[in-house]
């Protein structure tokens, strides 16, 4: 093993001691796509993750440019896929915020935006 790798292990031992840890399920892709522009407001937002999700602890919220909720409030989870229906809310920037628990017991959260209209 290279000396540099041995040096890298030292902070990892500290990591073990401090117990710092990260989460697991990553966002694989979304529809509408992250940062994309769509002509008309979508009826729902769907997110695909890299691992299976726990429905009880996984949620999506979608807000419009004014910060108002435009989702119906009921997140649907199937395997590694999660969706939420949207109410008609016109054009502008939509912000999607997600929080998921993967079945290996780790939580992840994140957010992205997409544009509706010109």
């Amino acid at each position, binding site marked *: 093993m290279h000396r540099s790798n041995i040096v890298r292990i030292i902070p990892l031992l500290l990591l073990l001691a401090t117990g710092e840890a990260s989460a697991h399920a990553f966002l694989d892709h979304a529809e509408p796509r992250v940062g994309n522009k769509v002509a008309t407001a979508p009826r729902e937002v769907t997110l695909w993750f890299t691992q299976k999700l726990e429905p*009880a602890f996984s949620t999506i919220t979608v807000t419009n440019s004014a910060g108002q909720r435009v989702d119906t409030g009921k997140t649907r989870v199937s395997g590694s896929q999660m969706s939420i229906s949207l109410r008609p809310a016109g054009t502008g920037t939509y912000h999607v915020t997600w929080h998921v628990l993967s079945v290996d017991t780790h939580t992840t959260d994140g957010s992205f935006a997409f544009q509706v209209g010109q």
Partner: protein
Amino acid sequence: MDWLGAGVDGPLIVIRAIHFAATAVVAGSLIFREVVAEPALGSTQVATTVVRSQILLTASIGLAIAAVSGVIWLQLQAASMSGLPFGEAMSSDVLSTVLNETQFGLVSEIRFVLAIILAACLAYDRLALLRWLALASALGFTAAIAWTGHAGSTLGEMGNLHLTADALHLFAAAAWTGGLVSLAHLLSAARRHQGFAWASLARDAAQRFSTLGIISVGTLLVTGIVSAWILVGSFQALVITEYGLILVLKTMVFAIMLVFAAVNRFWLTPQLAFSSEKEAQVKALRRLTRNSVIEVALGFTIFAIVGALGTLHPAIHFMN
């Protein structure tokens, strides 16, 4: 570090390590009983009562620690899953959601039932049928851990392969590390009692455990490679990610365990078998006991590393 707020990763790592070690001791002692001790005791009646009660006591203590640490693991997991401070997460709503609506909760319930069956079998241990039921329950109690970790969330056909590899990996780790605890007890008793019958039993047990150890090491290597291939994926990911480097650390500790196992197998066990001098046999027995205890300590170090690995991003996520 926030030990009892929403950030419960530190305590989770510690409690997972304790739970994995205790579970391995339970399953390992019962595997040891059926594949090593009972066949070896067949020709040495004098030590039967001592060895059987040692194994039963070891398995019972292991089960008690596994049960207590399992309950604490569930509570810490509920706090981690809900994102609530520990005290608030102990509400019946949160605990019931975790138990009834998550895979971790379902697996915990199944393992709880298996632990009760196992406890009953250990309490009424005289029937052969109950001894085998105890072993089956202990193996189920151990294998089910696979569904609480990365293997349980791997998608598709790869998920089945990952779960199979993980369950076999857990069996092998329990057979080797957990079995070593019972072997160390047996060798220690042989050293205390001395006499031809005990020396013969120690020799026979050490030889039989060597075979179990070789099978366990082979299984650990193959299943470890399969899991690493799924969770790490490349040599680059192994050496540049936190997950990969901790896995390297685990492999290094495993390699040190192998060195001790090789010394036991190829040097000390033959001395026990072929040395005609009593003094040389006692010396070999003492070294074999000491090495077994060191191997157990290294095995428990690996469980601590595994406790941390389970909380990290698999390395392959960073490479795609």
